[in-house]
């Protein structure tokens, strides 16, 4: 039975709110929360917020936005905007969106900064204007915020190193050989942390040598990822492992290996994130591990935290939304399934 991520979070939220679940299950607004909100003179129905992610042109962020919409529906609050820039590289676009959001005077803003320092001034402006700021996924280092929900990217990178070593051992019998890693874009906070975590984790395995470090130059169409992977294999035909630090890099590598007829019995492929194509490839054994973050939690929890902060609840400054490695063996287990396909059905659509 597939536990949908949304149901899981709904049940958790109900238990956390300390009241019996509403019998219909359709609305999460239990009486205690409503009472608390009214006493704080902040009825839920009058609450407004804005969600700004790095870009709308990505399956990962589509999940965050969809989750935010679900949370808004479950809580009965109003989302003024669910938006993002045209690409993760367009910092100026996100700054403009944030400034426009501040002008609308929402109760809280859920924001995923696309640069670790460039948005700090604008975030500070929002914070100082009394708007609760919930950062998700990537940190704006030094910016004031109400809370920050994210994967611990360094730790996640290190988990990937362990998963790669385990896969190499299972396939070749020994933890030794040449490996390569590829980053989607340089100087992005979360990606750099993942790479550093991976490199730190790989140091434990003295038999593995890194022979190539590729850069995808932020090409979201995956063509650079495919070229990077196929050129790496061409230059090092005896490669045993490849790590891609985001969805595009690992998906491109899987395509390149398929195109070149690289034997999956010899080369291990590990990467971050998932989408229906990657899930199918994981189940078929073409990808050996996917580091699953919890973008659904970031969106859903982000809105929840925003609501709680708006009615005066004191929140922890950081929430680790967790990292799980899915392997072909664990791909069909219920917990992993919910993380692999948070929106439920394969294909497209935001599933609202």
């Amino acid at each position: 039975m597939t536990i949908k991520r949304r149901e899981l979070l709904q049940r958790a939220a109900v238990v956390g709110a300390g009241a019996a679940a509403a019998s219909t299950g359709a609305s999460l607004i239990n009486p205690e929360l409503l009472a608390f909100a009214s006493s704080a003179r902040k009825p839920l129905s009058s609450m407004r917020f804005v969600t700004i992610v790095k870009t709308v042109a990505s399956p990962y962020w589509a999940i965050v936005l969809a989750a935010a919409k679900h949370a808004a529906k479950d809580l009965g609050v109003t989302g003024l905007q669910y938006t993002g820039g045209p690409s993760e590289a367009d910092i100026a676009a996100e700054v403009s969106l944030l400034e426009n959001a501040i002008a609308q005077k929402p109760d809280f803003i859920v924001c995923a900064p696309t640069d670790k320092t460039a948005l700090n001034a604008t975030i500070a402006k929002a914070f100082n204007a009394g708007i609760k700021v919930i950062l998700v996924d990537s940190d704006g280092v030094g910016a004031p915020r109400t809370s920050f929900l994210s994967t611990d990217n360094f730790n996640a990178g290190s988990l990937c190193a362990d998963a790669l070593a385990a896969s190499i051992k299972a396939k070749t019998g020994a933890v030794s050989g040449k490996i390569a890693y590829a980053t989607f874009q340089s100087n992005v906070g979360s990606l750099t942390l993942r790479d550093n975590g991976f490199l730190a984790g790989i140091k434990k395995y003295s038999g593995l040598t890194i022979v190539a470090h590729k850069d995808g130059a932020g090409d979201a169409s995956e063509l650079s990822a495919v070229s990077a992977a196929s050129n790496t294999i061409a230059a090092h035909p005896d490669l045993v492992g490849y790590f891609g630090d985001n969805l595009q890099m690992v998906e491109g590598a899987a395509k390149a290996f398929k195109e070149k007829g690289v034997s999956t019995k010899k080369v291990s492929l590990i990467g971050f994130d998932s989408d229906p194509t990657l899930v199918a490839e994981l189940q078929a054994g073409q990808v050996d591990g996917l580091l699953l973050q919890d973008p659904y939690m970031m969106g859903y929890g982000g809105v929840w935290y925003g609501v709680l902060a708006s009615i005066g609840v004191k929140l922890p400054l950081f929430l680790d939304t967790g990292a799980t490695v899915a392997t072909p063996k664990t791909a069909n287990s219920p917990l992993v399934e919910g993380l692999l396909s948070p929106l439920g059905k394969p294909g497209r659509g935001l599933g609202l």
Partner: protein
Amino acid sequence: MPFSRGRGWRVPVPAFASQGIRFVADSPISMVPASQPAPEVARGGREGISGWLAERIDLVLRLGLLGIILIAAAIFTLDTIPSKHLSDIGQSIFISQGNLQDLARQMAVVGVIALGETFVIITAGIDLSVGSLLGLCGVIAAEGFLNGWSTPVVIFTTLLFALAVGLVNGLLVDMAKIPPFIVTLGMLGILRGAAYLVTQGLNLALSPTGQPTPFTSWIENTNFAIPNIFIVLAVLGVASAIFLRFTRRGRYIYALGSNPESARRVGINVRATILTVYALSGLSAGVAGLLLTGRLGTANPNAGTSYELDAISAAVLGGASLFGARGTILGTFLGVVLVNMLANGIDIDPHAIDPHMQQVVEGALLIIIVWIDQWRKRRVVAG
């Protein structure tokens, strides 16, 4: 539209002057014997070894772009021999079948776009919308497959749409007299936005379960060890070259680029010619979109971003002039080969250059190469 070259009343001779026809403004067409061919490079004058060397270098450089490609290929071949011994040259990674196939695949998509772009550039126009059109066509193709349409229907619909967009570009350039830069720049935004609207920013997998479809299988396959995706480029390239050189419409394209006013006065149907070049550019973007979607198995609304710049640089490298009337399909093809070969060769180099240094090297090499080519051309003219 192209402006005059500032030579007053004298009209620049169009590219087909060698056929023996010279056009002069405001006078009837006169059949005049062709003027002399380009002056020969002065040989000799330098004795001994340096003279011999100069002649050898000159010979290679006279081959122009082809010579440069051969030199670069030689360097990459020698550099990627795993054992570093000259005798093992057959083991070189660069010329291995796998890598050559990769190279063929890597250049196919931009190559097809560059073909269409060449036509437009020869008329002194420009088409900036091809990248976005590629993305949108890929999305349309994916939507078609996901709706259960058969492969021929998908291909037909996508190409029809691409043709229509090209015609719209052409009409706006010709009838509304808007500069091609502006028309295609606006179209770039419209098409890219449309791709995002249709997909809501998500990728569209051709098959939700990741299984290969007949379309993707055919594109991934090879015939006689040549990737099919490259065969498409080769066939289209040959057809384009024949069209440009041997048909009347092809010659009219050069005439239009050389001087549109003269072309109009001699009775060339300027509107038909403009519509032709932009339609061909649109069609090439449609084909490229199908090829990319087939190769990746997914349609990405971001696909094709800035491909138009790669196509234009390839065409210019190959000898096309942004002022019009110059350019050949073969030149564009060589330009595409050179750019992709540099990227591939540097990427597989075992010296493991930092990826950012790679970008610096690629950019520098491009400038040096065009500089050498310009130097060679000046030497030829100076005699």
